[in-house]
């Protein structure tokens, strides 16, 4: 584990250790400064065997994973997968039934001024409707000995400086999200947890969050960003932790996830379907018969399929490469665990996972139907 910390996946590891977070200065200064960031040890979230039961319902079921500094970790899963419960336990709000969640080896509840170390946005609606934005932030700042100057700074940072004196009752959801993010950044924390931060944001706001989280990670901070949207994570996260029904489904780099997802399917229509299928299978491709004279070919590029057909004089009516989207492997992974999957979607998802992992053809039918 320590080895992994010493070799951050992306460059920015400990770039800011010396000048950035005053709250940690006393701690980090006592550690040897290294290019790869000793300081990052202080900011790793470690989740070990975390379990939370609410009565009969097991919201989180033996989760174990690390969230490392310097990268954006996407925390992905369908609604009800246990993402929010996990974050609450990290923040010491809910007590785990068993297991532990620590930050830099310490429990959140043991931190003397937690806002200076960990910033979190759990629920953008959690603001008092009649307490002005600036007062909301001031009450938080005061409790952790953070000055008024910093309150004004973060209000500017999230673009709410002009409405600082207004009451959140009149705020749009997007403005409340920004206020929530301002609160998360108040203590200039080394660890930032954001639960569904893009909910309710307009496209400009979504892009802003994307840039902000990437910048924060580049400064060496630990960023855990939850979402139920794979498409959003694909653009923001470096690393993915996928959960379903409280269990860990995947803990992988985004690149690896994309590679596994990027298998191309070639759609071929030909009057000589049966013959071409045999030829392609002999050449090493996997072939499935579609509707009518359609073939779905995997494991071979469209050019190679064309070459095989040409070499044997098979007439082609269509030759179309089709790239799987990132949503597909994600849905395949979580399909069985979605709590509220629609009745129509569920049997399809089941049969996919039953067919095993290498069912690109099966997921093609799903995507074909969706199109």
């Amino acid at each position, binding site marked *: 584990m320590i080895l992994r910390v010493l070799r951050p996946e992306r460059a920015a590891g400990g770039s800011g250790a010396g000048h950035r977070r005053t709250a940690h200065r006393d701690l980090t200064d006592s550690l040897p400064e290294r290019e790869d960031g000793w300081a990052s040890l202080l900011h790793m979230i470690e989740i070990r065997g975390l379990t939370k039961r609410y009565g009969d319902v097991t919201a989180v079921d033996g989760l174990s994973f690390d969230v490392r500094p310097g990268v954006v970790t996407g925390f992905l899963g369908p609604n009800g997968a246990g993402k929010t419960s996990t974050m609450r336990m990290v923040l010491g709000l809910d007590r785990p039934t068993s297991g532990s969640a620590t930050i830099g080896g310490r429990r959140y509840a043991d931190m003397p001024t937690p806002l200076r170390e960990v910033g979190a946005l759990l*629920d953008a609606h959690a603001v008092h*409707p009649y307490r*002005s934005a600036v007062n909301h932030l*001031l009450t938080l700042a005061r*409790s952790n000995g953070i000055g008024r100057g910093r309150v004004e700074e973060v209000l500017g940072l999230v673009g709410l400086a002009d409405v600082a004196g207004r009451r959140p009752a009149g705020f749009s959801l997007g403005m409340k999200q920004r206020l929530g993010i301002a609160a998360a950044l108040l203590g200039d924390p080394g660890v930032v947890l954001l639960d569904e931060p893009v909910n309710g944001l307009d496209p400009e706001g979504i892009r802003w969050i994307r840039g902000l989280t990437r910048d924060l990670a580049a400064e060496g901070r630990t960023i855990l960003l939850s979402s139920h949207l794979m498409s959003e994570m694909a653009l923001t996260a470096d690393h993915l932790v996928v959960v379903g029904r409280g269990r860990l489904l995947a803990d992988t780099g985004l690149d690896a996830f994309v590679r596994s997802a990027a298998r191309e399917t070639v759609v071929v229509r030909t009057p000589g379907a049966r013959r071409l299928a045999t030829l392609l299978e002999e050449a090493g491709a996997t072939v499935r018969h579609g509707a009518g004279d359609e073939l779905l070919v995997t494991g071979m590029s469209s050019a190679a399929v064309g070459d095989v057909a040409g070499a044997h004089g098979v007439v082609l009516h269509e030759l179309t490469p089709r790239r799987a989207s990132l949503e597909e492997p994600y849905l395949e992974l979580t399909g069985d665990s979605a709590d509220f999957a629609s009745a129509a979607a569920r049997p399809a998802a089941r049969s996919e996972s039953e067919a095993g992992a290498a069912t690109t053809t099966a997921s093609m039918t799903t995507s074909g139907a969706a199109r």
Partner: protein
Amino acid sequence: MTAYDILRSEWGKFRSIRATLGCLAGALVTTAAYGYLFGLSSARQYLAGSAADQAAFDPTETGFRALVLAGVLVSAVGVLAVTSEYASGTMRVSVAAVPRRSLLLGGKAAVVAVVALVAGPPMALVSFTLSQISLAARNVPSAGLGDPGVLAAVAGAGLFTGLVGLYGVALGFLLRRSAGAVSLGTFLLILPGMAALFPDAIAEWIVVWWPSAAGARVFAVHPGPDGLAPLAGIGVLAATVLALLCAAAAVFRTRDV
């Protein structure tokens, strides 16, 4: 994170909630209005009473009755200081900022207690003055602020409202819902007023020992042989409130937010 930081933070929260300020203003209006009305009612009773009744009449007794009614609103201030955080969802934000929950509860309780403590004597002053004015206007014997024991009762009002405010804080943490905590809090506070509905033995016990009744003994300028001494009475209320606060802290420390 010092206790001072938390007090400042909680004071900031308290100030910016309109409902609590409204309740405090309402409590002051209540003491004024009911102080005057209780005075009128006592005057009528005096004038209709026998010579023996008139001889035993204690004009100070009517002066502070309104404080018990105002206590309902003061306890609501304590309740709302807590339940407004649960209602808006900010309790999670607050606990994330101050994970030492007893300290958070202590900060909230201290702010409410100080505000209620400071608000008590002016309420008592208003109630007492208006009640004596309405007595005097009907040529019924009345008391002055300078009479022995009156200023002590006025000061004691601060203790009463302070404790009642803390009582609201404890109920707020225990029940977490504004409506539930305010209605239960009100019911328990005014229960002695309904003592006559109970069998005699229970009624007598309630009138003497029920914490809100016992606490109101602090207003007794001429405590008779019946009932507790003023300080003993407020002591009963204080012990009850302390027990409720301990229960609230125990629950708040262990419960998921």
